[in-house]
Every structure is written in structure tokens, then in C-alpha cells.
């Protein structure tokens, strides 16, 4: 499953067929700090995603790029 990360923009490949919160945990991302978007739809952390999906993980924190 392709995951597009922002600030800076980059793409990573992770396994699907599991819940959003598990994907975020693998990427070491706090679910409260991002929007997870699939096909222009917001996903909650309990939503299941599949290998064929493409996700965008968009940070919500403003204040500069990560130190």
C-alpha cells in the first residue's frame, strides 16, 4: 500500500489489510496529529485499509517543519 507523507513530501510502502491506527503505529505517527485520506475521504483510525489502497497522511500541526 502506498502512503504519501507530507512536509516534506515523500512516499512509503507499507502493508495493508489492517486498521489505520496500525499503519500509523508502524510509521510512528500520533493519530491525533494527522488526517488520513483515501480517495478524498477522511478515515478514522479504526477504518480498515487494503494493499491496493493509496493513502495520504497529512499533518495538522502548523508551526514549521519538523526539527
Amino acid at each position, binding site marked *: 500500500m502506498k502512503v504519501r507523507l507530507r512536509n516534506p513530501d515523500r512516499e512509503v510502502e507499507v502493508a495493508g489489510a489492517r486498521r489505520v491506527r496500525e499503519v500509523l503505529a508502524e510509521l510512528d505517527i500520533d493519530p*491525533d496529529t494527522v488526517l488520513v485520506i483515501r480517495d478524498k475521504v*477522511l478515515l*478514522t483510525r479504526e*477504518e480498515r485499509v487494503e494493499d491496493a489502497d493509496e493513502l495520504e497522511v*497529512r499533518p495538522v500541526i502548523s508551526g*514549521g517543519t519538523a526539527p
Partner: protein
Amino acid sequence: MRCRRCREPAVIELRRHHAAFCQPCFERHVRGQVERAIEKHRMFGEEDRVLVAVSGGKDSLALWDVLLDLGYRASGLYLGLGIGEYSDRSGEVCRRFAADRGAELHEVDLAEDYGFDVPTAGKRGSRSTCAVCGLSKRYVFNRAALERGFDVIATGHNLDDEAATLLGNTLRWQTEYIARQAPVLPAKDGMARKVKPLHRLSELETAAYAFLRGIDYVVEECPLVAGNTQLRYKAALNALEATSPGTKASFYLGYLDRGVGLFADADDAELAPCAACGQPTTGRFCAFCRARAQVLGEPLGEPGDGDGAADRQVSRELSEEVLPAELYGDRG
């Protein structure tokens, strides 16, 4: 996961509220929080002209959207900072937003109207890029509001911004800054009234609202900043929030309920017109005029005018929190 209100499938979970919402109920929740802030703090009324400081980021455009939706007389003010493609894109999204909604957008361009841009100021001046950027925004917004007949300036500060700022000010016990962290700063001695109607909403909520409303906002951060102190405070609070949802709200909203009165006497600044531009300042020349003169290499006043008091004034003005954190990217 189901919406708390209507049991339809949820699109967002808010752990602080022990709730999840579908899109219509979430939008209602956001508008309700903004209405509650406006009413509780008597920010402005239906007849007031509101100038929304817009950067092209999620918070300020979400705020403008909510205010228009609620029927307020809200116009936008965009300040061109001259930060290359980042500023070009920021200006574009603000103009498109205004055009799509038939809203009034005012624009000021730092280079055209004041002779310098932020990257140049960062290189030539003694202040950091973010510091002179924030200073310029506060100055321009205040001046524009007064000169163009607005009753109040509204900024997109959200709960995360306010909690992070309060944490920073508390860690250093900067009582005069703590005293000014109310969601309403009344008009005073040439300072326009300033309000923060998003202060009850987290960044997650403002970002989700902007996305769900189809607002095209600038996701990218300013290229001139790579991390700042505010971001570290946010990270610390997010770490606490992860295990104790509601910590940020308890900290900041609790301060408003029970702490703000304790610091009321700490804000005793006397303001007088700047000798160069007439805008309010605690010294002879305001920090903006001093910064601008330095960047342009132009003299300001007579030799010997600069003194320690002026330096303290700059420090004070740079610390005043009147801008959305989405602007921190280009503020620092």
C-alpha cells in the same frame, strides 16, 4: 465507528470529547464551538466589520469560512511576504477562496507597500526571519484594520497554538505575556480589538473542517523555517495528550476560567504613537519602523535614539501572540 449524534458512519474521532462525528454533525460541532467562543467572550456582533487575517493555511481559511457561514460581516486580509513560490501559492488560495464565496479580500504587499520582503529582512536585519515576519504581520494587520474601518481583527489561533504559547510563557513565567493570552484583546491606545474565535478547537479539528469543506489550503510549511520553539511545546503537549486526552483543553481553557484573573495586573504597558508612523508603541519608535529602517539602511530619528528600553520593547512586541500558529511557519 459511528457518529455520536446520528449514528451514521463517522469520519473523525475526537478523543477529547469521547466522540466521533459524521461530516454534517462534525461541521455543526465546529460551528457550535466557534459560536460559543464568540458569544461567551462577546467577541463581536452581527453588525461589526470583522477583518480575518488570512495566510492561506487551514486555520485562517477555516475561520473565515465559519464566520461567513454564520452570517458575519467578515472580510479577509492577506499580507504578501515575498517568500517565493510559497507566498505565490498562499496568495492564490486566498484569492480563490474569496472569489468562490463572493467575499471581500484586502491585500497588502510587504515589498510594494513597505519596501522589503521577509527573506531580505532575515538576511539584512538583526532579527530572525521568523521574528521580523511576525512583527510585520502584527503591524500590518493592526494598521489595516484601523485605516480601513474594521471593528475587530480575527485570527485563526487554535487550541493547540494557545496551549503551546501558554506553556512557553509559563515555563519562563513571563507574566505580562500570560496576561495577554485571553481570546479577546480589547482595543487600546491605537491597538485594534483582536479576537481568536478558534481557541476552543484543536488543530485536528480545524484541519479536518477545512478538508471536509473542500477548502484548498496550503499544506506545505514555510521554507524559511525548520522547526521552532513553538513546535517543541506542541510536541510536548501532544505527548501528554496521547495518554491523557483533554490535557491541552484543560490547560488552556482552565487558564481562561480560573487563571487569567491572577495575571490581570501584569499587563501594564503604556502605549504612545510611534514618532515615525503613529502606530502604538511603548518606546519612541515602534519595533516595525526600527526593523524596517535597519533592513533598508535608512536612518530613523536622531543619533542616540536607540536605547535599552527600545530593545525591551522589541522583545515584548515580538512575544505578543496575535497570529495563528499556521503562520508560525513563516513567523517563528
